[in-house]
């Protein structure tokens, strides 16, 4: 095979797309095949082995897990480099015409969780129908939130970054985490299924269109969609902070996550174009603050970190090594 094959997270997908296109244009190599399989699916394919039949690179919206490292190692994929390429804000947004909103993570949890603690150590199905049911200061309209389906990595990130944090702070939850972690996980992770939370499929564009036509609804999706549609949508502040490149990069916007890719070093000498491709990915033109990835909505790393990453990847440093 003479093309590079990449798999992995749908969040990293557009960035890898951009790089492969530039790479193909620049070098005249055949364009890499970029598939979006999701982070988990990506690791699964990536770690399945070395050799022509297996992917060279996988994108991830989280760091590789130990279990996945083991899987890789078990299949002989031991020499992996990790590249942190930037951050992605998971933005919560709504139509321009909607009243400004500022939510805390707790409020978001109370709006979207399947069950809430009833205060006596038990749990009740989420009774909140309107935002004002949660807090009188919030607007008086029905809760409608478009969000990613459970099969998507974005959903996992959202649950972990927002729901869990919001959940922790509720009365009694801290104790529960000590006593019954499984129950805690379940309560804090389950999104409500009774209407207000709409699992909207993988197509974020459709969410944008619907938000536009429905001022009362909020949507949860990658920052790049907000960025592209700034004329129609505006962000909902979380804990008082609106997403932007700055707040995402410095971590003050709470719903941000790092984006990575992982590359099989064993393939570098085997698959034509691998090195050039990585060079392209690591170049300032791509990764830099004015690079074309930032242009597509990737929150870039600061200079120091970036140089570290560039060096690590180009030298083929192994993770952990």
């Amino acid at each position, binding site marked *: 095979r003479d093309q590079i094959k990449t798999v992995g997270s749908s969040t990293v997908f557009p960035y890898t797309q951009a790089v492969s296109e*530039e790479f193909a*244009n620049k070098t005249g190599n055949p364009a890499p*095949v*970029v598939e979006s399989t999701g982070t988990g699916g990506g690791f699964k394919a990536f770690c399945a082995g070395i050799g022509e039949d297996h992917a060279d690179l996988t994108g991830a919206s989280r760091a590789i897990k130990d279990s996945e490292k083991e899987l890789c190692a078990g299949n002989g994929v031991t020499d992996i480099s990790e590249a942190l390429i930037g951050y992605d804000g998971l933005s919560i947004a709504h139509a321009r015409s909607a009243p400004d909103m500022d939510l805390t993570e707790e409020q978001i949890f109370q709006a979207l969780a399947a069950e809430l603690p009833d205060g006596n150590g038990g749990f009740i199905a989420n009774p909140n129908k309107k935002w004002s049911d949660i807090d009188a200061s919030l607007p008086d309209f029905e809760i409608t939130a478009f969000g990613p389906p459970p099969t998507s990595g974005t959903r996992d990130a959202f649950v972990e970054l927002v729901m869990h944090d919001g959940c922790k702070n509720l009365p009694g939850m801290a104790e529960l985490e000590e006593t019954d972690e499984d129950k805690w996980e379940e309560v804090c992770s389950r999104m409500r299924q009774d209407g207000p939370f709409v699992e909207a499929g993988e197509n974020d564009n459709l969410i944008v269109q619907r938000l536009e036509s429905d001022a009362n609804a909020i949507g949860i999706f*990658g920052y790049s969609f907000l960025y592209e549609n700034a004329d129609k949508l505006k962000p909902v502040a979380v804990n008082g902070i609106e997403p932007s490149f700055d707040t995402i990069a410095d971590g003050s916007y709470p719903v941000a996550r790092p984006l990575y890719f992982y590359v099989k070093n064993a393939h570098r000498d085997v698959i034509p174009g691998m090195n050039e491709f990585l060079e392209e990915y690591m170049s300032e033109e791509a990764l830099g603050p004015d690079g074309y990835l930032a*242009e597509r909505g990737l929150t870039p790393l600061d200079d120091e970190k970036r140089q570290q990453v560039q060096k690590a990847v180009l030298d083929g440093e192994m993770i952990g090594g």
Partner: protein
Amino acid sequence: MSQSATAAAPGRSPQAPVLWKSQEMADRRKARYAADRRLQMYGLAGIIFALGFLAILLTTLAFTGYKAFVQTTASVEINLAAQDIDRTDIREANWRSIFRDAVRQEFPDLSRAEEREFFKIFTSSAHYLVRDRVLDNPALLDGTTTFHIPLADPLDQFAKGEVNPDLPEDQRRVSNAQLELYEVLDARGMISQPFNWGLFFNADSRFPELAGLAGAISGSFWALLVCFLISFPVGIAAAIYLEEFAPKNRWTDLIEININNLAAVPSVVFGMLGLAVFLGWFGLPRSAPFVGGLVLSLMTLPTLIIVTRASLKSVPMAIREAALGVGASKHEVIFHHVLPLAMPTVMTGTIIGLAQALGETAPLLLIGMNAFITSPPDGIFEASTALPTQIYIWADSPERGFVARTSAAILVLLGFLALMNAIAIFLRQRFERRW
């Protein structure tokens, strides 16, 4: 006995004439005619509903899609003769700076920051476009050439009136500086909106202004070719066997029911079959038009077999008997007479089956024909998308330019379908036979 029946019904003598001319009867008839007209209205309403829906569907598509058929470009003059380019290695020249220098000459006194904004007006692959044209025609190196460079998507959208310049600057993708520069370019007559051939001849791209359907069209073409090459001979052979040769027993009944059933099995199930069998067991490559074609041919086969059988059946017995009567063997009867006579119907059935396969999405999603690939496939084993999956991908892209392009891609797909159906109708009318 008829008397007894009459006696049993004394209320009305059997000969009692019905008063057809009575007012009562006339009124009744009026009501009956009204009911008749109502039924007719319902029918007409149904047709109007269906056709109205069709019309709305098509106009909506045309309305959102038509803008993607033009592309805003700016003409940039580049004096390549003045550049120091190594003719033995044109590719490696610093095209980015060549392009930027040329653009700078239009606006010699911009600040660094303004310049950066300015370059973003053009598609970010502009220098590659220049390079590729020169590679195609090295003679350009000897003079000054005007290049039409597509504008970046935000500006393209602006030029098409999709961006409201009155919005605050942070709510649009076009900065004020870019707007000013754009106005200047426009005033100098450098902006034009030619037909967007790139939509047909470019492969997919992250950049809406460059993205085209070439990859999807050739992917669909290869998949359909495979589909045709498999389903046509196999379908006809199977139909002939079942219709003409198979003994009529439980087994052939089973096959027949099976085929009829397959014709209505959800397409997504065929996708799952392809995923598990072709990719999983046979280890065929993902995203390949070959696999797509295989799956589509399995889907098309039953329809084709059914159509072929029906058309074989419609060839009158008299023709077969005539041929048998002069001593043709069964195979000769079929291959010399029956099949040629059935062929027009078989052809139209095939085309319609292929047209359906062309529009099929779900099975292709499952076998990975929804990848991002920036070059058209060179063969049936190379990764590629197909038209419907390309639509699916574009519909999911954040860039604004893809909204119109998605509709345009749908229109292109519908265009191909219309073409295929037109061929089928032509064939049917040209060759239709009445016995």
